């Protein structure tokens, strides 16, 4: 995750509290998703960006996961997500992100 995005997420977490946030990805490829998730949960693994050593524990979803799409109004879903749902294979990303979220909820117990 680039430093600019890390900075934005850190600023929002400071402003609203990380427990009130979720990060929604729009990636088209599986590669990189794991690092994205790790960055906003455990901190920047490269120890170079604004989230180095900052474990925000924010859950991460892909925009095409049902948890997200079901909360999007039907007209907006058709307009913004229908095409992407035909193009992007979300399942491999869902597996990675589900594992990350489960790790997070286990840690919270």
């Amino acid at each position, binding site marked *: 995750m680039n430093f600019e995005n890390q900075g934005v997420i850190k600023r929002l977490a400071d402003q609203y509290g990380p427990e009130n946030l979720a990060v929604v990805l729009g990636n088209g*490829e599986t590669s990189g998703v794991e690092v994205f998730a790790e960055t906003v949960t455990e901190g920047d693994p490269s120890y170079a960006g604004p989230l180095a050593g900052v474990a925000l524990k924010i859950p991460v979803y892909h925009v095409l996961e049902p948890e997200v799409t079901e909360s999007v109004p039907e007209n907006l879903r058709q*307009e913004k997500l229908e095409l*992407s749902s035909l193009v992007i294979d979300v399942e491999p990303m869902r597996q990675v992100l589900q594992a990350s979220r489960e790790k997070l909820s286990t840690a919270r117990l």
Partner: protein
Amino acid sequence: MSNFARPVHIGIDGVFYSLAHVPQLVRFGSKPARELVDRPSLQDELNGSLRSFTDAVAYAAHQTFIGNLTPEALRACKAPWFENSIEGASEKGRFGDLVDQGSFYRLLAQADQFNLVSLDQQWLAGLSRGVSDGQRLQLRTSDQIAALIQKGALPLGSGKRMAGCFEPGHAEDVNLTADILLENLAAKATAAHALSSLMASLQMAPMDVDYVISCSEEAVGDRYNRGGGNLAKAIAEQAGCMNAAGTDVKSFCAGPMYAMVHGASLIQSGLCRNVAVVAGGSLAKLGMKFQSHLEKRMPILEDVLASFAVLLGPPKKNQPCLRLNSASFHRVGAASSPQGMAEGLAEAPLKKLGMKLTDVDRYAVELHNPEITVPSGSGDVPRTNYRTLAALAVMRGQLKKDQMEDFVRDRGMVGYAPTQGHIPSAVSYLGHALDALRAGRIKNSLFISKGSLFLGKMTQLSDGCSFLIENAEESWRSNVEG
């Protein structure tokens, strides 16, 4: 019938592509240069992963770029292409060439009017490819070159020795430093080579060119005019187009499509008889993903400066033409989502011609070579673009969902262009498109380019431009009078 049903055609007389193989300039690419400051030890690793000219020539993607392999033939080539060289590959292509590093340094020196480039006279004398008389090159001894490098000139390496060096253009102006001027002069030199080669292939005198448009990406100018531009005129001069005027048309990667529409409009208006659209290579993008390539133990594949030149003119009967009134632009208020871009740049132009997405035989999109982009996590860019177009066709009921892969295979192609920004963006397919149209293998092709305007921090907008090419059914005269 809509006003657009009657075609306005501008002839595409020819195209020439060139790849200058410059492995020892990879270190001056933006990403390697930055990483090498932090980790100088990377230089050895980088040097050990550079390709020879022979390997660059025999690389299947390059052979496709210069026209010796069709995109269909490339799909059948065994991957990875960098491990499966094309036997008997030639540096001369059907509509392009590969230039070795030594020849590129000479082109650079010939394009230099400000004594920025010095070449080592011993190195030059030892070149196997001779230098013709009458080239005004600034020659120096090896000791003089070493002294200049000591003072801050950039080294132009050749194997284990120096071929020359590149000096700054000004002591204080940060826009005229050696690295920026090397980028700019490399763009000029490679574009001029492509334009000269196009003229030779068309057996046309450069003096007969009316206008040159450059869509190169470099910001040419001094501290008061950063990006002021008109590299076009410098390129035209270098190619001997002494009767031509020129100017630059830019929009990041979408530049070439806009440049072609502007050029076609100059011809349609009657202002110019012909227009050459040219672009030089982007030195900043050399080695952009080199770290991923090193991690995957691959050769560094971003080691070429790519350039092209297209000549537009009045349409001739049965000639492949740009259908000018099919051109579509991405509007300020239009959506930048993949769907919005596909609607605006593919569906919209076809709709006004009364065509469906499935009426296009071949789509030319951003044709980035996936062998370069996939290892760094950027994905297979053309494949994603083709799936997006197929998905839109599904949503419009023109295609069944289980036909998407057929659409991608039959109306798309595998990417083969180097990641040089403006170069992969559709224009890379033009040479093959002209061949396929002339041979009747396709009846049309939709060219779609996209640009990332947000990279310049002036707007969050994206951009794009598209148009259809097809054979003219009639010549200019009947087109105008009819």
